[in-house]
């Protein structure tokens, strides 16, 4: 938390503050932090993929031909397949980590032990889901 950055020194009396990206790299992350940062990263990926979601919906909806085109596109176009896998994987992870976050908002899973166990659970569940989604798509 304490930064030697002189720019931050005048704000020392303001309590906790954000640490810079450069500082972050040197930290050894506890597993709870990894779950949290992946939740943030997957959310940002989903934000970037909003136009792709709409593009898919438009293609699926516009005609029977373009619906079939998307379906067969999974076999021909690896970009479409990978983007869809990234989209569904990010959605799955963001969803389950979000449920954990809601539990924490309600005051659960905040002790060291329960936080650790639930974090490991989310990582394993996320990994299994992402592998299964890949298996389903390929």
């Amino acid at each position, binding site marked *: 938390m304490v930064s030697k950055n002189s720019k931050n020194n005048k704000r020392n009396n303001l309590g906790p503050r*954000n640490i810079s990206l450069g500082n972050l790299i040197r930290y050894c992350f506890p597993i709870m932090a990894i779950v949290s940062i992946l939740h943030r990263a997957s959310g*940002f990926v989903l*934000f970037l993929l*909003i*136009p792709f979601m709409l593009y898919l*919906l438009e293609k699926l*909806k*516009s*005609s029977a031909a373009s619906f079939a085109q998307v379906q067969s596109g999974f076999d021909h176009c690896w970009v479409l397949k990978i983007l869809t896998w990234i989209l569904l994987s990010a959605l799955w992870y963001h969803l389950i980590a979000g449920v954990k976050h*809601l539990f924490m908002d309600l005051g659960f899973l905040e002790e060291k032990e329960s936080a650790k166990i639930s974090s490991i659970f989310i990582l394993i569940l996320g990994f299994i889901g992402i592998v299964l989604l890949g298996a389903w798509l390929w």
Partner: protein
Amino acid sequence: MVSSVNSITGLTKSGMKDWFIQRITAVLMAAYLIILIGFLMNHYFNFGNLDYVFFMKIFNTLFFKISTFIFILFLLFHAWIGVWTIFTDYIHCSVLRGVLFTLIFLVMLSCALWGAVILWS
């Protein structure tokens, strides 16, 4: 000072409200996805495929047109609050942040309108 400047670009004027909206939209979007995936899975396991006819049968109902549009709006609100949190954490130049927020606002507004066109065309 810093927080009052940041709150201009928040979704609402209040962090508590943003916090609440982000959670309530999350729960409702999850409910929508479970219902939609439930319909698709039910058809898939009964008929062994997902075809255009069934897909359109779902999206031609007023229920799915409206709920999907609300989903898109909730997605954009939810994303706005999330991206605001990320940008105010990592981007310390307020001019750059302002430019990015303006661009994102335009893209999001376009996405909302695009979604409406897709759903009602």
